[in-house]
């Protein structure tokens, strides 16, 4: 499952080596951040979730079995679960808050990201309009370049279910983008 060098680093991490953990950070932080960044509305939220992903990995490293799953798949799975927790929490908070007035709702929310180019923002907006699991399936397969088996493992699905999610997600994306780009 893992290359020899990676295995050595992983074994050191599992034994509690902080310097080996730093190497893991150097290798995987960017990729995890990119995944979370595409899943969430802005960089600050993505930073918090990415940070929590590695802290969770470190504190429960005894649960990771390198013979069964690749480290990057495991990290993405933690990140995915944290994203789902985050969306649930945000939905609950939004339910508790009073509905925004028309003038407010037409403006960007504080979470809106201004760093993306206009074209990227249109695609991001379309992705954000998808249900979380469809979005996650597309981000994992299209942007993170995971194999079907690894993406299915991250989402805790069968490969058939993953294909179904991807197909529905892409179909919906086509509709949304067709309207946005009219």
């Amino acid at each position, binding site marked *: 499952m893992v290359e020899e060098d990676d295995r050595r680093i992983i074994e050191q991490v599992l034994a509690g080596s902080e310097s080996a953990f730093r190497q893991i*950070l150097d290798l995987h*932080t960017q990729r995890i*951040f990119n995944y979370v960044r595409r899943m969430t509305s802005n*960089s600050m939220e993505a*930073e918090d979730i990415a940070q929590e992903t590695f802290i969770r990995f470190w504190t429960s490293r005894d649960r990771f079995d390198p013979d069964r799953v690749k480290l990057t798949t495991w990290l993405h799975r933690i990140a995915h679960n944290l994203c789902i927790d985050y969306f649930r929490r945000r939905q609950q908070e939004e339910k508790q808050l009073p509905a925004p007035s028309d003038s407010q709702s037409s403006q960007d929310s504080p979470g809106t990201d201004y760093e993306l180019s206009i074209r990227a923002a249109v695609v*991001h907006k379309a992705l954000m309009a998808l249900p979380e699991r469809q979005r996650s399936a597309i981000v994992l397969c299209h942007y993170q370049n995971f194999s*079907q088996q690894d993406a299915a493992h991250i989402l805790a699905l069968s*490969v058939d279910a993953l294909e179904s999610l991807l197909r529905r997600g892409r179909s919906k994306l086509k509709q949304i983008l067709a309207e946005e780009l009219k």
Partner: protein
Amino acid sequence: MNLERFTLIVESYGADPQQWPGDERAEALEFSRSSTDALSLLDKEAALDEHLALFELPDHKRSVQRIEKGILSALKPGLLEQLLNWILPDVDDLAHTLWRPTLAACMPLLLGVAIGLTLTDNNTYELSSDEELSLLAFTAAASEERSYD
């Protein structure tokens, strides 16, 4: 490979053959060359792939640095934990680390010796000449009493 399966693959994974399932890629590619329906389907999905490719992320070096800094500071143990980690010997390397708990155990003894030395220094007292004379007088009186006895 048939049109139904090819459609499912392309509608799920897009028009780029690199994204298709590895075990079906060759067959799907061959099928795409032989079917006009397959080609039009590829064109349709390629348009979505192009849109998806527009979502490029800007350089996130600073974000990544912040994340790593945050993680390392969150994992940094407190002073007490650091002290305990240092004192407790490494089970795999007892020969080189056993001196640490030994030193920690000796600390009360060393502290006691230090306090003792400090107190001894304070008790060093030089007699004044009057005090010496009165002590001599006591000694003389005592020896006289002994001689009477």
